């Protein structure tokens, strides 16, 4: 198993460019282990990514990898999936990448319920450009473009996806890498658009500015604040306010787009 995992990494491209304490490596490792456990043929797996810190992960993974333009990863992946429905496509995006510039593609991928596995690494900030606020930055938190704290309300990414039609939504934190791996695997096995939100510390561009301590402090905080979805059912809304609900938030049944399309044209061709 260890050897396989190494086969899935482009070791000659390592070490990675991420800062010390960044959670992107933990999430990427969870993704690799999930792919390994899914037992896919290496040739059938494609990693698509957008632009930003997280999206550099594609370059380190030994599959067919597609590093696209900012926000457009899901649109590239949609074309690819439609041309080759047998491919297992994982789309790595950052919070800004996915929900701001890529917001439209995100809701429409959800609406089509196309079989892509979106892994969104949410570090609450634009890391690569140096710490500007994103649509997922919590209200009141500071960023270079919100020096007095952002007034904007944050998206609930999973609710947004659900409202748009996504059929699988899950959340975990970098403090729980095994759970994250499990959830990515469940998302991969789910037929339809899967959204996995992976909360990840950015100690440099986000933590430092908001006085959240070291990377270890941030991870500990993530762990303490996370509540499993099962436990959350027992809790009042007020109790959940400062908490992060983790686990499979929802799974729904709806037709998957690429399968539907090819089934429909089979009728036309015959």
């Amino acid at each position, binding site marked *: 198993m260890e050897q396989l995992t190494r086969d899935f990494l482009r070791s000659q491209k390592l070490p990675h460019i991420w800062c010390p304490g960044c959670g992107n490596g933990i999430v990427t490792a969870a993704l690799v282990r999930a792919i390994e456990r899914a037992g896919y043929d*290496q040739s059938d797996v494609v990693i698509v990514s957008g632009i930003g810190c997280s999206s550099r992960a594609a370059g380190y993974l030994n599959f067919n990898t597609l590093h696209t333009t900012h926000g457009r990863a899901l649109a590239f992946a949609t074309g*690819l999936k439609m*041309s080759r429905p047998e491919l297992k496509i994982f789309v790595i995006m950052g919070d800004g990448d996915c929900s701001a510039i890529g917001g439209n593609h995100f809701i*429409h991928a959800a609406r089509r319920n196309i079989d892509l596995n979106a892994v969104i690494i949410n570090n609450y900030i634009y890391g690569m450009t140096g710490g500007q606020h994103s649509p997922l930055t919590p209200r009141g938190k500071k960023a270079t473009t919100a020096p007095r704290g952002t007034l904007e309300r944050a998206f609930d990414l999973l609710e947004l996806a659900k409202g748009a039609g996504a059929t699988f939504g899950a959340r975990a934190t970098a403090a729980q890498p095994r759970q994250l791996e499990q959830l990515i695997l469940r998302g991969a096995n789910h037929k339809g658009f899967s959204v996995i939100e992976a909360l990840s510390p950015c100690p440099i561009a986000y933590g430092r500015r908001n006085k959240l301590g070291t990377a270890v402090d941030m991870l500990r905080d993530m762990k303490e604040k996370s509540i499993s979805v099962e436990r959350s059912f027992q809790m009042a809304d007020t109790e959940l306010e400062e908490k992060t609900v983790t686990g499979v938030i929802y799974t729904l049944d709806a037709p998957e787009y690429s399968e539907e399309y090819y089934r429909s044209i089979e009728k036309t061709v015959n």
Partner: protein
Amino acid sequence: MPEIKPVLMQGNEACAEGAISAGVRFYAGYPITPSTEVAEHMASKLPEIGGVFIQMEDEIASMAAVIGASIGGMRSLTATSGPGFSLKQENLGYAIMAEIPCVVVNVQRMGPSTGVPTAPAQGDVMQARWGTHGDHPIIVFSPASVYETFYLTIAAVNLSQKLRQPVIMLLDEVIGHMREKVLIPEAGKLMVERSSDKVPSDWKPYDEKGLTPLVPFGFGHFYHVTGLFHDQYGFPTGDPIQVERALDRIHGKLEKYRDEIILTNYIGHKEPRVAIITYGCTVRSARAVVKKAYWQERLPVGLLSMQTIWPFPAREVEALANQADVIIVPEMNMGQIIGEVERYACGKAKIVPLNRYDGEMITPEQILNEIGRWL
């Protein structure tokens, strides 16, 4: 001999039919006048032959999906008009950088901005050349008839496959919406081999030795595709030597295959005193003028029509400037290609603009009047 049947069709339909004949099996687009019939035709035809039609959420997504499908191994095409073309530019640049074949159709309308959706214009010549950022090569065809639209779209698909380079079909509203007779050969006779059919075992996605076929994802070669400057294996690099080499590579392939890319047509007097250089629907008025002035009245007049406008047919224009005293450049804009004509005429001929930008075609009479002033 392949069977050839005459069909009456619209320019936009001819574009879609040409694409299908050349093996295009993927279309992603967003509706916009006056290009919509390309999408509508594709939506009707592609599912019948096992292809994919998808109406995306916007123009940016359409361009992205076309690139994604091409990496999956399908020949792909998208169609739009001016405002949509602007939105596609970033991902068009991506396709150039990552060397992903695809065809982008822009049926021009009057601009800037939303302009006049249904009025003809040739205002996107420079957008087609320089719309995306950075120093990039580009191939742009500009057909003058429905017949030419059909065959140039086939050429565009095949050339894009061969050179792993996006090709733009720059139509104007007149060509897109006009109906004419097209002679359609038997299906399947018009397609070049897919470049990935012959892949050497030591294949590299961006081989420094030159043109290399694209291997679709899922065929065992694990490689990286990025819009960043990359080495011959596709991995990002900031090394000045590799960066320069990458740019030389994408420009060099167009220079090397120049004679296959550049298509022009000359009619009229062998040693003209007054010549016309034009492209797109304006060719039609100019051709009528040459028929009358040269074929009937034997005046020393000639016409260079350009099916390829980018890369610019510099040699052809230079040769004509050595012959003619005056070169008239009719364009349905405020003057775009004329700058290139001046550049390559190098002062050897007088270059005269003839522009119309009121949403109407340039008439043969207008061109005749201009010729009359110089003969």
